[in-house]
C-alpha cells in the first residue's frame, strides 16, 4: 500500500529544491526567562513561607535590639541604684493611663497610705494617684484602700553623705535652676531607723517614735502632718545658703530655721528628694522601660546585654562546631571503612557525655585560666560538633557514590577537590540548617545553666538571661515584671529561631522544589 502511494508522487525536478539554512548557523532559541539557580530558588521558596519570613524579621529585630540597646541606653549593666529597685516598667507614652506607667494598684492599709501621702506633701507631687477606701470587716473594721501608687515617686527622700564640694555644687544647681533638691533634716536623722529609707521619709511627727516604726503619723486636728524638722537659730547652718522650702520662714521669733545639712567627718550629711537628686546626677528623671530588678539594675539594658552575650556565644559555638563537624564528618563519610569506624567510636563516646557534666567539669577546671565564658565555649564545642559531623557524614555517604563524583574522579580530581568542590556544596543546605537550628539550643542551655548557677556569668558589667530569670523567679509573686521581660524575650527568640530554621530547611532542600504548588 505504502509503495503504491510512494509511486504516486510525481517526480520533482532537482532545481526546484533549495537550501534553507546554507549560510546560517543554527542555535537553540535563547531562553526568554532567567535561569533559576539553587540559591535563588531557595530564596524564592523561603520568601513564600510566611511564618519563616516573619520569624526571620523577628530575629533581625531581636539581634538589633541586642546590638543597639546597650549602646543607646541611658543606663549600663553596671548601673545599680539602691533606691529604685524593683520599680515597675514605665513608658512615658502611657503616662497616667494606669498601664505601663510605673504605677501599681493594690490594697494598702491606712498607715501605708498616710506614709505614701506624706512623701508627696513636701514636694507637692501625688504619689497615690487614685484611691478608693473600703472597710475591712475581717480585721477589726479597719479602713483599707485600693490605691494606685507611683512606684517611682514612692521612693521619697534619702540621706546622702556628700563631700563639701559636692554639697556646694548641689546648692549651685538649686540656685541656677530653682529646683529644690535638698530638703530639711527631720529629727529622725539618727541612723537607727529601719523603714522609710532609714527614716529620711519621716519628716512629720510620728505616733510611734521607735526605730522600727512604720511611719504612723501623729496628725493635728485638721488631719494634716505636723512637721518635725530640726531647728536652728543659724539660718546658714552647715553653710547652706540656697533655696528653702515653703514654711521655712524663721518661725515666730525669727530664730527657728530649718536645717538642710549636718557636717560630719566626710563632708555633709543631707536629705535629698531622690527623684530630683536622680535627675541632678543623671540628667533626667528616672524612667525604666522594663522596670528594674532587685539590685536596681535597668532590666532593659541588662536583657539586651544578656541577649548580646547569648547571641555571641551561640553564633561562635555554631560557627566553630560547623567547621569542626564539617571537616570531621567529611573525612568520616568520604573515606569510610576503618577510618569511619574509629572516628565514629570517638564521636559516639563524646556524644554520650551529658552536657551538664562537661559544662560543670570545664567550669571547675578552666574558669580560672580562660574565664567563665571561655570555658563555657569550650564545653559547647567539646560535644556540640558531634551532631554536625553526623549530619555531614550522612550527606557524604549519600553523594559519594553518585555518577558525577565518579566522573570527576576519572578526570583526575584529588580527594580534597572532590570533598570541597563536588560533594560539600551538595550537603550545604543540611549543614546550614543544622547550624542555624543549633543556635536556639545553645541559648536555651546557656540560660538554663546560668539560671541554676552552675555557671556564673554575672560580673559588674556582664549578665545573662538566665541570671535575670533566676533573680526574677525569687520575686515572682511580688514583682512579676522582673521575670516577665526576660521570659518573653527568650520565648520569642526560641520560637522565631525554630520557625526560621524549619523554613530554611525546607527552602534549602532541593527535592521540595515545586512540591508546595
Amino acid at each position, binding site marked *: 500500500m505504502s509503495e503504491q502511494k510512494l509511486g504516486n508522487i510525481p517526480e520533482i525536478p532537482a532545481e526546484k529544491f533549495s537550501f534553507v539554512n546554507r549560510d546560517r548557523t543554527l542555535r537553540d532559541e535563547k531562553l526568554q526567562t532567567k535561569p533559576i539557580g539553587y540559591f535563588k530558588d531557595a530564596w524564592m521558596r523561603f520568601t513564600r513561607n510566611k*511564618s519563616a519570613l516573619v520569624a526571620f524579621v523577628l530575629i533581625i529585630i531581636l539581634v538589633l535590639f541586642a546590638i543597639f540597646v546597650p549602646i543607646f541606653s541611658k543606663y549600663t549593666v553596671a548601673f545599680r541604684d539602691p533606691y529604685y529597685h524593683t520599680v515597675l516598667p514605665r513608658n512615658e507614652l502611657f503616662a497616667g493611663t494606669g498601664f505601663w506607667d510605673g504605677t501599681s494598684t493594690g490594697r494598702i492599709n491606712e498607715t501605708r497610705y498616710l506614709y505614701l501621702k506624706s512623701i508627696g506633701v513636701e514636694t507637692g507631687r501625688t504619689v497615690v494617684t487614685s484611691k478608693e477606701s473600703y472597710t475591712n470587716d475581717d480585721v477589726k473594721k479597719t479602713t483599707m484602700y485600693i490605691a494606685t501608687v507611683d512606684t517611682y515617686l514612692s521612693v521619697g527622700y534619702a540621706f546622702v553623705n556628700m563631700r563639701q564640694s559636692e554639697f556646694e555644687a548641689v546648692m549651685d544647681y538649686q540656685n541656677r535652676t530653682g529646683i529644690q533638691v535638698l530638703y530639711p533634716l527631720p529629727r529622725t536623722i539618727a541612723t537607727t531607723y529601719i523603714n522609710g529609707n532609714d527614716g529620711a521619709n519621716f519628716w512629720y511627727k510620728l505616733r510611734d517614735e521607735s526605730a522600727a516604726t512604720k511611719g504612723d503619723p501623729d496628725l493635728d486636728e485638721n488631719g494634716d502632718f505636723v512637721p518635725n524638722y530640726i531647728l536652728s537659730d543659724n539660718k546658714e547652718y552647715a553653710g547652706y545658703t540656697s533655696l528653702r522650702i515653703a514654711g521655712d520662714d524663721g518661725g515666730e521669733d525669727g530664730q527657728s530655721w530649718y536645717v538642710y545639712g549636718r557636717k560630719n567627718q566626710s563632708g555633709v550629711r543631707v536629705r535629698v528628694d531622690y527623684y530630683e537628686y536622680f535627675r541632678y546626677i543623671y540628667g533626667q528623671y528616672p524612667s525604666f522601660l522594663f522596670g528594674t530588678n532587685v539590685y536596681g539594675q535597668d532590666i532593659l539594658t541588662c536583657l539586651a546585654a544578656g541577649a548580646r552575650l547569648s547571641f555571641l556565644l551561640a553564633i561562635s559555638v555554631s560557627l566553630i562546631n560547623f567547621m569542626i563537624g564539617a571537616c570531621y564528618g567529611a573525612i568520616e563519610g568520604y573515606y569510610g571503612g576503618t577510618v569511619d569506624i574509629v572516628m565514629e567510636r570517638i564521636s*559516639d*563516646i563524646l556524644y*554520650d*557525655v*551529658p552536657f*551538664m*557534666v562537661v559544662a*560543670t*567539669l570545664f567550669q*571547675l*577546671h578552666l574558669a580560672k585560666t580562660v574565664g567563665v565564658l571561655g570555658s563555657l565555649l569550650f564545653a559547647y564545642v567539646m560535644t556540640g560538633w558531634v551532631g554536625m559531623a553526623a549530619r555531614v557524614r550522612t550527606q557524604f555517604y549519600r553523594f559519594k557514590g553518585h555518577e558525577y563524583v565518579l566522573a570527576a574522579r576519572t578526570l583526575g580530581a584529588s580527594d580534597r577537590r572532590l570533598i570541597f568542590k563536588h560533594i560539600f556544596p551538595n550537603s550545604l543546605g543540611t549543614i546550614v540548617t543544622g547550624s542555624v537550628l543549633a543556635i*536556639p539550643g545553645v541559648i*536555651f542551655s546557656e*540560660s*538554663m545553666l546560668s*539560671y*541554676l*548557677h*552552675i555557671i556564673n556569668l554575672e560580673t559588674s558589667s556582664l549578665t545573662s538571661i538566665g541570671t535575670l*530569670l533566676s533573680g526574677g*523567679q525569687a520575686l*515572682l*509573686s511580688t514583682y*512579676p515584671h522582673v*521575670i516577665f521581660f526576660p*521570659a518573653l524575650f*527568650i*520565648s520569642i527568640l*526560641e*520560637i522565631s*529561631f*525554630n*520557625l526560621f530554621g*524549619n523554613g530554611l530547611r525546607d527552602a534549602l532542600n532541593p527535592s521540595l522544589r515545586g512540591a508546595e504548588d
Partner: protein
Amino acid sequence: MGKHYMGMYIAKRILLMFLTLFIIMTMCFILVKLLPLPAVKEMGRDINLVLAKREKMGYNKPIMVQYFLFWKNILTEWDWGVGEQMYEGLVVWDVMIDKLPYTVLVNLYSILIAIPIGLAFGIFAALKKNKWQDHLISTLVMVFISVPSYVYAFIVQYFLCFKAGWFKLTMPSVSELGGTLLSGRVFVALIPAILSLGFGVVANLTRYTRAELSEVLTGDYMLLARTKGLTKAQAISRHAMRNAMVVILPMIISDFIGILGGSLIIENIFGIPGVGNLYINSINVRDYNFFMAMSVFYTFIGLASGIVMDVSYGLIDPRIRMGSKK
C-alpha cells in the same frame, strides 16, 4: 532467624554501652580527681566517718591507685562513697535511691497525662490536614515546642500557685502532706511540675503523631481498606494507627527516659526533692562523690534511652532490621 539476630543485636549494643560508660566514667573520674579536694566541714556530724571513708578510698595516694580503689569499691560493695559537703556521712547511693521516686513520679505522671492528649491532637490534625484546624494545631505545637520549659513553670507558678492559690509555690515534703508517695495528695502537690513538663511532651507527641499518621494515611492499603468496606474510623484505628505507632511508641519510651534527665530545672523551680535537685546541689557545694555518682547516672540514662529506642523499633516492626549488613 530474626529473633536470634535481635538478641545478638541487643547484646552487642549493651556491651558497647558499658564500654562507653566505662570510658566516660574514667575521664570523669580523672578530671574530678585533678580538682583540689574540699576540706570536710567541721560542722558535719559524722566527720570521722567521712575521714575514714576518704582513707578507704585512698585520698592521699596517686590517682591511678584511687582509680583502682574506686572500681574495687563499686564492683565488690557497690560503694559510691558518702556525702562530704551535703548529707554528710550518708551513703551516696542510698540518698540517690531515696530521691529517685520523686523524679520518676513527676515524669511518669506527666507522660501518662500527655500521651492521650498528644495522640488526640495529633490524630485530629492529621485527619484535618491542611485545613484551618491543622494549621492552628501545627502553629501551637511550634510555639509550645519552642518555648523553654522553665517559662511554663513560671507561668504555672504565677497563675496557678500564686494568683489562684490552688497549690503551694514550692512542693511541701511528703511527711507534711501526709500519706505515702503514691497517694493523691502527693499527686496534687506535684501537679504544677507535671503541667510544666507536660506542655512540651504534648506538643512533641502531637507533632510526631500528625507527621506519621498523615504519611500513613496516604498509603495504598488505606485505600484498599476503605474499598473493602471499612468505615473511616475502622480503617484508621485498625490500619493507620497501628502503622503510625511503629514510630510513635519508641518515641514515647525514649521521651520518658529522656525527660528523667530533663526535669532538672523544673525540680529546682518547684522544690521537688528529686535527683535533679540533688545533682545541682552537688555541683554547687562541690560534693564530688555525689557529682561522680550522679554523672554516671545521667550518662547511663542517656545511653539506655538510645538503646531502648533502637531496640523497640525492631521489636515493634519486624521490617526494620537494625545493624543488618547490606
